[in-house]
C-alpha cells in the first residue's frame, strides 16, 4: 500500500514526478503559474494523489486559492489532519 506523503520531502518528490521535473527540483516556494507543466492533467493527478494517499477530497476551488507548491502541501496537510 502506498504511504501517506505527510513528509515535506516526500511530497515535493511526488510533485516533481507529477510535473515531470528531475527529482529534487522543487523546494516549495515555486509559483504554480510559473511551472510549465502545471495544467489540468497535473491538477487532476494532484487531486487523485491526495485522495489516494490521504483519503480526502480536494476540490479545484480549493486549489485555485493556492499560489505556490508550499500552499498545495499545506492544503494536503490541512485536509488530511482535519479528516
Amino acid at each position: 500500500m502506498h504511504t501517506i506523503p505527510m513528509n515535506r520531502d516526500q511530497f515535493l518528490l511526488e510533485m516533481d514526478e507529477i510535473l515531470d521535473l528531475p527529482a529534487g527540483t522543487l523546494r516549495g516556494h515555486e509559483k504554480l503559474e510559473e511551472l510549465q507543466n502545471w495544467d489540468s492533467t497535473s491538477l487532476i493527478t494532484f487531486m487523485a494523489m491526495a485522495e489516494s494517499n490521504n483519503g480526502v477530497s480536494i476540490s479545484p476551488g480549493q486549489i485555485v486559492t493556492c499560489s505556490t507548491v508550499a500552499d498545495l502541501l499545506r492544503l494536503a496537510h490541512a485536509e488530511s489532519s482535519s479528516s
Partner: protein
Amino acid sequence: MASEATTLRSEILKALHHPIVVADILRKRQVMKRELLKQTNLVPTRIAILGGSTTTEVKSMLELFLLAQGIAPTFYESGYNRYSEDVEFENPDLWNFKPNIVLIHTTWHNISEFPELLEADGAVENRVRREVARFTSLWEKIHTELGAVIIQNNFDLPRLRPLGNLEASESFGRVNFISSLNAEFAKYGRTHSRFLINDIHYLSGQVGQAEWFRSNYWYSFHMAVSPTATVALARNVAAIVKSAYGKSKKCLVLDLDNTLWGGVIGDDGMQNLILGRDHPVGEAYLDFQRYVKSLKRRGVILAVCSKNDAENAKEGFSHPDSVLKLEDFSAFKANWDPKPENIRAIAAQLNIGLDSIVFVDDNPVERDFVAEQLPEVAVPNVGADVSSFAEVLEHEHYFEVDKLVQDDLNRSAYYSSNAERSAGEGKFSDYGEFLASLEMTAEIGSFLPVYLERITQLINRTNQFNLTTRRYTSAEVVAIAQDPGFITLYGRLGDKFGDNGLVSVLIGQILDETVQLDLWLMSCRVLKREMEFAMFDALVEQCQARGIRKIVGIYIPSKKNSMVAAHYASLGFTAIAGASEGPELWCYNVPASYSPRTHYIRRTADGLVAAPSLADDESVPSRA
C-alpha cells in the same frame, strides 16, 4: 547484460501489469511515456476519441497502455460532449484525421431520455428504439464515410437510484432501461464486424460504483469516470485495440506442482494430490483447471513446462478430479532442464513466437528466471495462491479477441495434429515421401466474405513468414477484396490428420501489366509443406488469366521475418538493381507456359478469376 535503459523500461512495463498501483501510474505517467516511446518497431495507429464527457485522462492513460503493447497512437479528441456533432456535421478536422479507430466514450450521462414514471412497456420500448437509432446513425456514418473500426462504450449505471430496487424491476426503471440499451448495442455488435463493445457496464462493477464515478471530478471537470477508474478503462480499451492488431497471446504454458494441483506429484503420488471438492484448496485448483480448460475451448493452446519425471507428471492428469486431461496439451515438457530451454523448445515445436506465450508458475524463482532469460514471454506475477491465478490472467487481458472464428476454436487440434505430423516425419528416409504421405489438399481462391475476419486476423498477427509485415484494418481488407485493381488470394490447407484452416494470404496491386505484391504471409504451422509453392502457382495462373506479364515482390526486412529473406530468390525472382537500401524489390516475368511448383498439394477449388462481389455490404468505403 541489460543496459540501464532496458532495466528502467522493464521496470516501467512491470508497473503497468498486475498488481497495479494506480497512484504510481498517475504520478509517473510522463516518465513512463517518455521511456516507452524509446521502443523500436512500434505499430502506428490513429484513434479518434469522441467524448460524451471530458476525455483528456482517457487519452493520456490509453496512450500509456497502448505504448506498453507496442502500439504508438496519435489522437484526435472531440470537444466536450461533441461526440455526436463531430460525426453528424462531418467536422473536417475529424475527416482529415482519417482515424483507424473511433472510440465513442459515452456513459449513462449521455442517454438523452429516460422513461417517465409508470410509463407503459410499449412506450419504454419506443424510447429504447429511438435512443439506439440515434447511436446507430453515428455508427453507420463512421463506417461508411470514415471506414474506421468503432469501439463503443456500453452504459454504466447511475450512482443514485431514486426508485431503489424498482429501478431494476420496473420496465420504466433506469437500471432496466440501461440493460435494454446495452442488449441492443450488443446485438448491433454481433452483426457488424467492425464494431466492438467496450464493456464499461462490467468495468464499473469491477472497479466499484463508488470508485468509478466521483462527483467532485464530474462537477469540476465533467469527467464521467474518475482518474483512478480511468486506468481500468484504458487497460480495457488497449486490450481491444491490441486484439484488433493481432497482438493477443496464443499459448498458455503451465507449471504443474502447486499450479494445476496442490502437492508435488513425484513425492506425494497422484492419489495424494490436493485437487477436488473435498478440500478447500483442492476446490481452488479445480476451479483454476476449469478456467484453463475454458481458455483451451476458445482456442488458447495449452502446454506444460514442469520440473518432473515425464511419467510422474503425466500421471497427475489421471487423478479422478482432474478436469484437464493429457490430450488437452499440445506440447508437454516435463524434465529437469531449465525452464527457459523448455519454453524455447515448446515455441519451436508449435511454430509460434516466444511473444505469443504466457507462462504461469507458482514459484517466483522460476518466474523471474524465465522473465529474465526470455523477455518476450509474458510472465504474470500470479503469486502463490491458486485462488488468484485466473483473476490475474483476466486482468492482464492476454487472450482478448475481437471476434471468435471457427479457426480459433480448432487451433488446439491443429497444433496437436502437428505433433503427430512431426512424429511421422522421422519414419521416412526422404522428405518428399513424407510430404506425399500427408495427402495434402489446398483450397486457394480470391478473398471470400466468409473468410475476411480470419484474413484480417492473420494479417495483423503473422510476423515470421510475412514478406512486408504490412497491417490492414478489417475495413481496408473489405475494400481491397472488392477492388478489381487488386489480386487477392487466401489458402486453406488440409491433410490426412485434419484441417489446418486458412493459413496463407496474398495481396497484389495491379499496375498496368504488373502486379506488385504488397502482402504475402503464411502461418508458420504449415512451414516446409510447399503451401507457399501452391500459392505461387495460383498467383501465376491468375496473372496469366488477367494478362499480367510481371510480378514484383517486395521484401521489407524486420526483426522477425528473416526466414523469408530468400523467399523470392527461391521462387526464381531476380533482384531489381538499385534496391540495396530499404525494401528489397524482386521481379518475375510471367511465362506463357508454366509448370506448377508444388508436387505434393492437390488443389480442390479455385474461383481464381472473378473477385467476389461484396456489393451487398453498402457500408464499405471505396479505397483511395
